[in-house]
């Protein structure tokens, strides 16, 4: 099980295995450094990213959506090292059979800020002569003592005139190493990932994370149990309720009683219909008789009132 990092290349999202991400990052960082002096740096980087994305697509399918480290390594091999225009560009064949002696860039003195104490003069000198930085520093101190302080003056003159190494190419020249190939980049990235994994910081962090994870797991388990118990209780409650309801229903509304009810209603309605059908005339007579009685009563009443006056 590996962690996955999501990135986007040319507007499309990709999921990369952790190591794969580091290698790709290293490749693109190196490309950016090589193109530092190119006016179209950003555009070229975008194009490169898009090309990488296009190549990654061939490693994805409906049921495989994470890019692994070997796949990224392969894609980077296919892309080839980024060669800035005007610098010593490399072509496919040349890269595979590079001849170190003739391909090395000229050595040049740079100040190197990585691992510097004051301004990177000593680190730069150490890289240039390929010796230990500490030795350079001791020599500088000795020189200063022996020359009654002229060493410090020399140091500050060097701070003024020696440029700082900024791009990948500068670093190559500072140390006089051959241009970095994709494979070396990959190895370097792998190594730094391994170093980091083995470092105490990482371990303690991972330890904490592990403890936290265990705690969390415990809590989760407790919660799950609780939830399960609650679910069970709820379920049985519902079941009981349903059973009770069904029982009541059956008690009062058994199928037989249902049929009996329907039969009674039908009978009653037919009886009413039959009664109405046979006795319409009778009802009519009854009502007209009632009407006549009412009318004679009214007229009688009127007569009494009238004659009484």
């Amino acid at each position, binding site marked *: 099980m590996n962690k996955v990092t999501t990135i986007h290349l040319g507007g499309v999202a990709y999921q990369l295995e952790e190591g794969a991400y580091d290698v790709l990052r290293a490749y693109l960082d190196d490309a950016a450094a090589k193109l530092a002096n190119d006016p*179209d740096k950003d555009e*070229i980087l975008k194009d490169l990213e898009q090309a990488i994305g296009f190549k990654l697509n061939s490693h994805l399918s409906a049921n495989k959506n994470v890019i692994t480290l070997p796949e990224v390594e392969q894609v980077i091999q296919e892309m080839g090292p980024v060669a800035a225009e005007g610098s010593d560009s490399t072509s496919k064949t040349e890269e595979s059979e590079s001849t170190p002696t003739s391909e090395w860039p000229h050595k040049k003195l740079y100040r190197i800020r990585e691992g510097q104490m004051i301004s990177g003069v000593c680190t730069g000198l150490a890289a240039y002569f390929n010796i230990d930085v500490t030795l350079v520093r001791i020599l500088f101190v000795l020189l200063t003592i022996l020359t009654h302080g002229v060493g410090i003056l020399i140091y500050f003159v060097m701070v003024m005139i020696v440029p700082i190494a900024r791009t990948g190419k500068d670093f190559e020249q500072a140390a006089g190493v051959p241009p970095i190939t994709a494979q070396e980049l990959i190895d370097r990235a792998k190594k730094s990932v391994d170093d980091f994994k083995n470092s105490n910081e990482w371990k303690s962090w991972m330890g904490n994370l592990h403890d936290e994870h265990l705690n969390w797991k415990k809590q989760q388990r407790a919660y799950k149990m609780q939830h399960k118990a609650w679910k069970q209780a709820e379920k049985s409650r519902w079941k009981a309720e349903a059973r009770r309801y069904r029982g009541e229903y059956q008690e009062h509304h058994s199928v037989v009683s249902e049929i009996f009810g329907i039969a009674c209603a039908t009978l009653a309605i037919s009886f009413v219909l039959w009664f109405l059908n046979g006795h319409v005339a009778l009802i009519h007579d009854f009502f007209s008789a009632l009407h006549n009685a009412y009318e004679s009563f009214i007229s009688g009443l009127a007569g009494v009132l009238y004659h009484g006056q």
Partner: protein
Amino acid sequence: MDTNAEDSKLTPLRKGLLEMAVLKVISGKEAYAADILERLNDTPFATQEGTLYPLLSKLRRDGAVTYEWVESESGPPRKYYSLTKDGHATLKQLSDYLKTLQTSINNLSK
């Protein structure tokens, strides 16, 4: 090109002509970067994205090539490169010069 010694002599030649090779490919037919790589793949000029993209960018700055964005069915739009008038002129100039060089070399042995 089997040995390193041989290659170190031939590499500069090939490198110097890569630009012309790319112009030549585009002059025949407008192309995507991937088409250019594929076309060059079987030739001594075989190269990779890492080299081609910065080169195309430089050619565009020089005014030799131009591109337009073309929508693709699979994925984001891609750059479709074509040669400009200047590009055709440059290519002709390079071709002529290469011929001159070739002729001169041939004549030197006479």
